[in-house]
């Protein structure tokens, strides 16, 4: 199944080791090797490799360059934020520290090329030198002349040098305005489901059989494959959940071949993992600890999102509710919701036809401070005097980023705000003060039938409230 890599000029033993370390990537490795050619031959000055993350681009390059012992410099553009770091690293890897120290304090590209040429005179290239730049999309944000210069570096330094750029983004988004030296573009395709199964099954646990582990990987892929194909994420999830999978086996309840029982045990656990560990709501450490505790003791796993539910004082909660209503209700409907004697407003057919205008799809709208206070006074049930404490609570809501200030800081007399919380959050808050927020929202209003109200009660957004203030 795996074809043997062969190339004159490279040792067969080394090539065999390369094949071993790069499973499911034989075609790409072969192509790269044939483009590289024999060590003393020239290769194309710049090669651009693109593909999804964790599709093996850096891995294959590293394995090839290390095993075949070719002179190279691997640079991650995330690390090398400034030109000085970049050039120093290149010279260090290719020529050693004395060369790197020849660079002046803030080297320009001109200095780099000069030092490189100087070094070439002392040690000319007997083999092709490679410079591999990972996360090359960050080069677009560096100096404008850096990317075009790197693409033609072979010509500028007059040496047997090839620059290889690895990136997740396609080449069309890299091209500078006036053009540049076009590199040879190669694609690393994503792993298929079979490939993922094969690669993940390689790290089987020594105390269990390989078939057992691959059935576990099969179950894992069944749950996660439709959401995520990233090899690194899947690898992480596989490592975290394996102990839970083996739990019934260790307790002696099932045998290795009882796949159905094992599946029943692990499936809810994996579903929970999707909502927590996959989203990085909990750290891996917390997840492992939770697995070790008994099921009853586990309780609610506090994810990161749970920390956003701060405890607010009573009036702040009503201010937030009022802000939410002001953001998501159009101003003309305030009369209907908050006055005792209001006329009927036509809930337009307009909304039903053109659903996009549902405010919950478009996002919150800004409102002036006056409107917020007007809604606040009609929503809060006790009489409250307008005092500085109310206004300072508004400012603290802005600091907590529950409200966003839309107007400029200079405008003191008519500041505008927007509400920045989600419907779930505000429903939870209004539940704590016994306020039925859904009844006041324009988008969920249906004057014709009471069915919509039932629906929202069933969804648990609101609880029945005895006293309805505006009716």
């Amino acid at each position, binding site marked *: 199944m795996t074809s043997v890599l062969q190339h*004159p*000029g490279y040792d067969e033993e080394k090539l065999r080791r390369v094949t071993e370390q790069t499973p499911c990537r034989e075609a790409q490795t072969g*192509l790269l090797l*044939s*483009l590289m*050619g*024999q060590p*003393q*031959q*020239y*290769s*194309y000055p710049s090669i651009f490799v*693109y*593909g*999804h993350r964790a*599709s093996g681009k850096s891995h294959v390059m590293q394995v090839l360059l290390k095993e075949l012992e070719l002179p190279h410099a691997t640079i991650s553009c995330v690390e090398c934020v400034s030109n000085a770091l970049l050039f120093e690293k290149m010279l260090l890897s290719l020529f050693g520290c004395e060369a790197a120290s020849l660079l002046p304090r803030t080297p*320009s*590209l*001109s200095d780099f090329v*000069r030092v490189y040429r100087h070094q070439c005179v002392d040690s000319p290239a007997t083999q092709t030198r490679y410079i591999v730049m990972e996360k090359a999309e960050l080069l677009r944000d560096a100096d404008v*002349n850096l990317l*075009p*210069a790197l693409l033609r570096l*072979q*010509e*500028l330094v007059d040496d047997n040098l090839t620059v290889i750029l690895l990136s*997740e*983004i396609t080449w*069309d*988004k890299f091209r500078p305005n*006036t*053009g*540049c030296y*076009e590199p*040879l*573009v*190669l*694609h690393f*395709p*994503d792993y*298929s*489901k079979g490939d993922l199964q094969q690669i993940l099954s390689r790290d089987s646990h020594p105390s269990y059989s390989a078939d057992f582990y691959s059935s576990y990987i099969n179950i894992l892929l069944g749950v996660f*494959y*439709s*959401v*995520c*194909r990233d090899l690194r994420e899947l690898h992480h999830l596989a490592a975290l959940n394996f102990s839970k999978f083996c739990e019934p086996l260790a307790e002696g309840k099932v045998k290795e071949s009882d796949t159905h029982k094992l599946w029943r045990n692990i499936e809810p656990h994996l579903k929970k993992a*999707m*909502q927590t560990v*996959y*989203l990085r*709501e909990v750290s891996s450490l917390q997840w492992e600890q939770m697995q070790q505790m008994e099921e009853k003791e586990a309780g609610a796993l506090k994810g990161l999102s749970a920390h956003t539910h701060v405890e607010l004082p009573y009036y702040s909660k009503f201010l937030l509710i009022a802000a939410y209503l002001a953001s998501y209700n159009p101003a003309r409907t305030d009369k209907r919701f908050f006055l005792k004697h209001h006329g009927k407003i036509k809930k337009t057919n307009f909304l039903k036809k053109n*659903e*996009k205008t549902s405010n919950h*799809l*478009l*996002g*919150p709208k800004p409102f002036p401070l006056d409107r917020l206070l007007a809604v606040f006074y009609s929503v809060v049930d006790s009489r409250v005097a307008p005092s500085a404490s109310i206004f300072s609570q508004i400012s603290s809501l802005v600091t907590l980023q529950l409200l966003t200030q839309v107007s400029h800081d200079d405008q003191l007399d008519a500041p505008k705000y*927007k509400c*920045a919380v989600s419907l779930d959050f505000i429903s939870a808050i209004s539940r704590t003060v016994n306020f039925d927020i859904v009844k006041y929202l324009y988008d969920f209003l249906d004057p014709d039938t009471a069915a919509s109200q039932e629906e929202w009660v069933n969804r648990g957004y609101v609880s029945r409230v005895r006293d309805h203030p505006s009716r």
Partner: protein
Amino acid sequence: MSKRKAKYAHLPIGESITQVQSMLRERLCNQRLPDKPEGTEAQHKHLLELLRRTAIHGESNSVLIVGPRGAGKTMLLKCVLRDLLEDKEAQKSLLQVHLNGLLQTDDRIALKEITRQLHLENVVGDKVFGSFAENLAFLLEALKKGDRSSSRPVLFILDEFDLFAHHKNQTLLYNLLDVSQSAQAPIAVVGITCRLDVLELLEKRVKSRFSHRQIHLLSSLTFTQYLQRVQSQLSLPQDFPDVKFAQDWNDSIKTLCEDKSAEEALRRHFNSSKDFRSLHILLMLCLSRVTVAKPVIKPADLLEASRLCFVDAKANMLHGLSILELCLIIAMKHLNDVYEGEPFNLQMVHNEFKKFLQRKSNSMYNFEQPVIMKAFEHLQQLELIRPVDGSAAKTQKEYQLMRLMLDHSQIMEALQKYPLCPTDVKQWAMSAFG
């Protein structure tokens, strides 16, 4: 004669292949100069005449070589220099300074580089000059010959000439062209650029000192000439060690160019671009498939290389997305169709996706909002969707407006090739309105 031929007749096939690879790689990758100029004879003659007048007769000149990327400008200049330096007198007295707009981004750096290339660092020493012009005049003064009659001719080659026009006040250009107009020293200024409108970039005072001499390399190849170029790029020269092998190789190249399917592929390349560089990429991909087991280039190689060159990169990336991400892209496509290209946000896309889920009974894709948010962010990182310019800080992530950077045909093509695509997803994509 025949004895000498017999001695060098035959190399083992592995050796020959290695030789072929080395030679052709030098030609395709390292821009090895051809013996004769191909298709640019007139320009070659013109430039050679001009530079000879500077080198031998001491006449100052300035010229611009203009042509699109990969047209062969640098190759032309290097050929001309090679021919010029065959003359003994020119070789003795001509000095060359090579500057590149990508490297010398500043006039100060450029001046240091000029000093270095003229080997005048010791002469300049620690002197401080008032202005650029003074510095340049000093350098040229230092090049005067022993009898103080005239200075040695200097050839200034400015690669990426248009980048020099972006320097502050265009001092370097002004001073060089000024010297070329006045009788100070015989210099030739040769600029190489890819911009046809380069003269618009020059300031008035710089433009007036320029001689307005331009050499254009706008290739007007016909398809037959293109085929001849392919053949000459791949052919082995006469002095190849194994004569028989070279003969066989050249014959096989000839049959390759006459093959119908290969000609189709080459015509497709010719129609998209005629320049050297894209041709070199294609030929390099073909050359890399030549091994000891298969010592010729076959038409199948050319077709495969052509396919690799023309593949759609974004469709390739769509192939590797997860099913959830693909469903989100289809939802975005439907939104674009219904609302005619207006920007959308995550809430709208999620809503559209939920409408699709409601119609199907299986709840396989019923994911929570945060999981969908993560998939959406992944698409943003791949730059398949892009935020509309606006204050990104002030809006929540779910409500930030985005645009889809794919078009209808790319999505449809990707769906055809998508592995294990569920049929209901495909049908949803094909239906007119979500």
